[in-house]
């Protein structure tokens, strides 16, 4: 026990005596540990953060009918496969050809609240989302061609199937006509600007059809593999619908994710290598400074093992201190990055603390191997005659 106490006293006294040099080594270990702990936190949090970011780019899964159309019950069967926590939104769409001022336009019936969740990039240029019966959202291109603005009232006409035959034969046609109020103008930069959107119930009443869906867009917060699992499960269990991934979204998410993770790993490795170089340089300088003291210790009976133990003890103590500092600063660093880049908080991972400390100790120990080896090669005779 006394020997151990003397050992700790010797290594702490030695570190304290070379404070300025050791502070440099400690700083480099602490910075290395901070980057390690911070980047590993980010590494494990990036899929969640990035997944949330990607959900802003629209749905990543679509359900289409295996035959004609499907019902809301079919859609709900598919929807039930995905846990509520992972499902950001599920928007049904049905498209019908209608006419405005006798010109053909495509009208889509949907659920506005779900569309807001699946397609957050939809921009209401003027006015607001449709909410009540008799309101519709009109694509910017449609608005341009009919010179419509929010608040305008327009009539939509729909020719039922049985009347379409009469129309073909130039006979009198009985259209379904209904007046709507333009609630807002939609801008997306895509084909959505060529459609008008309304509640599914309004489209049903205009067309006289009920409970029919052409396509459902799902926005699911899950990694690529999990997403594929959901698709397979829906296709295996749900009838009348076929699920598939929106490759454009899922593939780019996977690519960005893997590139980001590779970058994080690379930076971590480089920082750890730089830390090792800094520690090795410091320890080499310390060994050079302490040549006489090492010679003396050997002259009065220290074995190579004792010298290794003492220097390794000093290194590991530095590694321990650097690891503790790095664990704390790493979390602060990761939280700041998360806040500034992804505008969200990061979860604290308690397991990272012992891992960071262990890695710091190992890295410091490894960096000190060469300098310590050179310490054991010092000739004890050099203490004689003041050489």
């Amino acid at each position: 026990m006394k020997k151990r106490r003397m050992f700790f006293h010797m290594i702490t006294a030695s570190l304290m005596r070379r404070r300025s040099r050791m502070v440099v080594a400690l700083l480099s270990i602490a910075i290395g540990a901070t980057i390690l702990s911070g980047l590993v936190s980010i590494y494990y949090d990036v899929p969640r953060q990035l997944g949330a970011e990607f959900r802003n780019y629209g749905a990543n899964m679509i359900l289409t009918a295996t035959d004609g159309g499907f019902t809301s019950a079919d859609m709900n069967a598919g929807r039930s496969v995905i846990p509520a926590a992972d499902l950001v939104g599920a928007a049904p769409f049905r498209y019908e050809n209608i006419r405005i001022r006798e010109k053909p336009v495509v009208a889509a019936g949907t659920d506005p609240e779900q569309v807001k969740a699946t397609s957050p990039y939809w921009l209401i240029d003027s006015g607001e989302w449709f909410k009540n019966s008799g309101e519709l959202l009109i694509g910017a291109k449609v608005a341009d061609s009919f010179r419509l603005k929010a608040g305008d009232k327009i009539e939509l006409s729909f020719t039922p199937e049985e009347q379409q035959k009469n129309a073909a034969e130039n006979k009198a046609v009985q259209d379904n006509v209904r007046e709507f109020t333009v609630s807002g103008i939609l801008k997306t930069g895509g084909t959505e600007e060529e459609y008008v959107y309304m509640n599914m119930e309004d489209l049903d009443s205009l067309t006289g059809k009920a409970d029919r869906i052409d396509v459902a867009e799902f926005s699911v917060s899950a990694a690529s593999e999990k997403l594929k699992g959901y698709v397979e499960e829906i296709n295996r269990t749900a009838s009348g619908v076929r699920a598939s991934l929106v490759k454009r979204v899922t593939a780019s998410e996977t690519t960005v994710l893997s590139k980001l993770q590779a970058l994080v790993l690379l930076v971590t490795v480089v920082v750890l290598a730089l830390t090792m170089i800094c520690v090795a340089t410091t320890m080499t300088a310390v060994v050079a400074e302490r040549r006489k003291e090492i010679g003396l210790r050997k002259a009065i009976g220290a074995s190579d093992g004792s010298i290794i133990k003492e220097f390794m003890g000093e290194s590991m103590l530095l590694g321990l201190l650097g690891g503790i500092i790095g664990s704390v600063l790493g979390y602060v660093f990761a939280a700041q990055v998360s806040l500034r880049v992804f505008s969200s908080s990061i979860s604290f991972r308690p397991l990272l603390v012992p891992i960071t400390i262990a890695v710091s100790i190992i890295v410091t120990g490894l960096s000190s191997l060469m300098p310590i080896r050179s310490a054991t090669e010092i000739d004890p005779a050099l203490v004689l005659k003041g050489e």
Partner: protein
Amino acid sequence: MSLLELKNVYKIYGELHALDNVNLTVEKGEWVSIMGPSGSGKSTMMNIIGCMDKPSKGEVLLDGVDISKESSKSLTTIRRDKIGLIFQQFHLVNNLTAVENVMLAQYYHSIPDEKEALEALERVGLTDRAKHLPSQLSGGEQQRVCVARALINYPEIILADEPTGNLDEANEETVVDLFHKLHDEGTTLIVVTHDPEVAEVAQRQLVLRNGRISKEVINQHFTGKIRFND
């Protein structure tokens, strides 16, 4: 059996014979001084007797063991167990106090014992300086700590390399008095010195020249006390 025996010992560096057929016997409890000009081979001989170097040829028997054939690991063990070293430049560890410097030798030997280390400091008259760092001690005090460290593990031989080289007359006398006490207690002393007054105190003086023992003087009037020539 003699405590130390050097038989036809050579140490050759290229063309240079640092030790050239040296034969020497030191009995247990003897006080021997070694003198000689620079380059005469004193340091080489000290290194070999102190188990820090091996001869190129010949036998060095320490307590019956031929140390010229031992590995460096077992030389470390022999040095730790049988030899106490005193240096010209004291060589104390600067970040350890006087008593901790003494305990350092115990630490490598067996178990550090502060009480015993304080007793050793008491023997060299430094009880009140035990908790001081080397930088807070005078040269003479540092050398006395060095003596306490050398004797703490009850070595067979104390090897002193120019022990008074950096001391004033008063401290020189104190250190020689300490040697006298150690000799009285039966410790074997080998003292390398340039100082004739320190050398003459010993029971036997050897003069080394060009790697050979050129002269050996037995002190017929051995008192172990220094006599300064004013």
